[in-house]
């Protein structure tokens, strides 16, 4: 699988330092596998130690146990990422929460459920990005290029009944990404908000249990598209560096 990924990517990310949150399942896992196979230096974050260890063993990526929804975890996470990678070129905020599952109409949604969706999907990425912004800006100053990719959803722009907590949180993330884009461009840090589409992932199965997996995108395909977008963003911010890569 890893060799196939490398061939499909047709790119060597050797030495690029990338962190992925939510890296033990679904799109995050596919990203970690893809990036590690492409020889990037990868750190990933997830909550469950056992899964972190398993994915770390499989991919040789650096696994970090932490919860982006917990304020107390953020700087420890940032320190471990920066330490283990020796800096940071790309942060992929992938970890997500649906809020209430099964999905609920907004009028049935508890405030705490909306709060959880906002904390994991908006506040967590904000905190982690802020903690790592110094490392990203340093990477940009070195001419390596730097980017933050926030994984979004079409629920951020379309109004799906029952997706209120998730959709509102992802809409906030989208808008925050747009503002980061403006504010960080002079620092050389690129921000992207990417919608991977409906994927065959545990999160989607939680939201739509009766969906036919055959109709859904493979997370591996979405990961490849995201990596391509990431490279596009880095080319814009550091054309010379990327041009030198084989």
């Amino acid at each position, binding site marked *: 699988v890893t060799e196939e990924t490398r061939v499909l990517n047709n790119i060597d990310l050797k030495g690029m330092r990338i962190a992925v949150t939510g890296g033990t399942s679904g799109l995050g896992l596919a990203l970690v596998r893809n990036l590690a196979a492409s020889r990037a230096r990868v750190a990933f974050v997830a909550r469950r130690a056992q899964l972190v260890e398993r994915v770390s063993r499989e991919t040789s990526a650096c696994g970090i146990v932490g919860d982006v929804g917990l304020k107390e975890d953020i700087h420890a996470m940032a320190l471990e990422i*920066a330490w283990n990678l020796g800096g940071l070129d790309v942060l992929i905020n992938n970890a997500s929460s649906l809020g209430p599952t099964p999905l609920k109409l907004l009028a049935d949604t508890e405030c705490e459920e909306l709060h959880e969706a906002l904390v994991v999907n908006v506040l967590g990425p904000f905190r982690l990005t802020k903690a790592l912004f110094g*490392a990203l800006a*340093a990477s940009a100053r070195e001419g390596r290029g730097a980017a933050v990719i926030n994984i979004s959803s079409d629920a951020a722009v379309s109004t799906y009944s029952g997706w209120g907590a998730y959709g509102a949180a992802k809409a906030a993330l989208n808008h925050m990404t747009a503002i980061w884009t403006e504010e960080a461009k002079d620092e050389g840090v690129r921000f992207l908000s990417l919608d991977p589409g409906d994927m065959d992932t545990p999160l989607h199965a939680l939201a739509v249990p009766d969906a036919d997996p055959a109709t859904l995108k493979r997370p591996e395909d979405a990961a490849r598209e995201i990596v391509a977008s990431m490279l596009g963003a880095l080319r814009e911010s550091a054309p010379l560096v990327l041009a030198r890569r084989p």
Partner: protein
Amino acid sequence: MTAEDRIDRQFAKLLVADADGAISHLPRAALASLFQRGDLVVANDAATLPASLQGVHRPTGKPIEARLAGWVSFRDPTRFIAVAFSAGDHRVPTEDRPPPPLLSAGDRLEFGPLIASVEGALNHPRLVHIRFAGHPASVVRGLVQHGRPIQYAHVPEPLKLRDVWMKIAADPIAFEAPSAGFALDRRTLKGWREEGVAFATLSHAAGLSSTGDAALDRRLPSTNTIAFRRRVRRRSRPRSRGPGASSRSGRASSGRLNPPPTLTGRCVPERVERADASLAARASVLLMRSSRASINPVKATPSYSERSLTTGRSTVCVLPLRSETIAPMSLETRC
């Protein structure tokens, strides 16, 4: 070294060394206005390790606090120079802390999930080399789980890692927060960019600066050679030189080369430079080298360094690098 939204940080002062080496104090908020087009600001962007560890000295069963004070081998998180104290925490001034149990080579120390051993004493009852067992990544994990930022008694409430995390924090290699960096926020950097003030960073592993023990403090920060990772931001926009700007660049009338107004061009990243940091560890503006330019302002004006030593604080670290400001600087540049 306090949380940025704390009122005492808002009232933090800025020490400015002028062209004659005279010292003055300004509100920290005045920092942004001190620089002009053509100036270069260099700051230490090292993030801070949680370097205070509470634990047990296993041979005696007595409590011990180890404050990591320096690298034995740069970026090897299994070996450190450490300063040890007996029971107590940051709320007791370090000068009032009793000495630790007698530490001998081979003694086992337990700090939460971390197991360490004393490699050897360093001719002072508090100063030792310690070695942590385990893989470097697991040691770093143990540090973030169990360690706390080093802090001093004037701030009683325990600080968290986020309290010592500067907005420019990058590489986590410092043992105490290079706290001058707290004066820097993105708005300030943006303003400087717009005004043609260049900004660059280096990553300097600021070591433990003070214990209150005169004999020990003379040995701090560690005189070991410390590695720096140089980072240079290339100028983001063409600089139109304003009236009088030329006097701040190029060759001075004495014939000595002055600091360049900015470092231009692309410099090779990731080069690790080495320098004697015995003085530099107390300041953040100290040394920068690149493939095309080398600046060796390791020594700022004597009065600057003396004053910062006198205060025992490493908070005075942002200095205007105008040629007229740091007269004794040794400098070569080929940018």
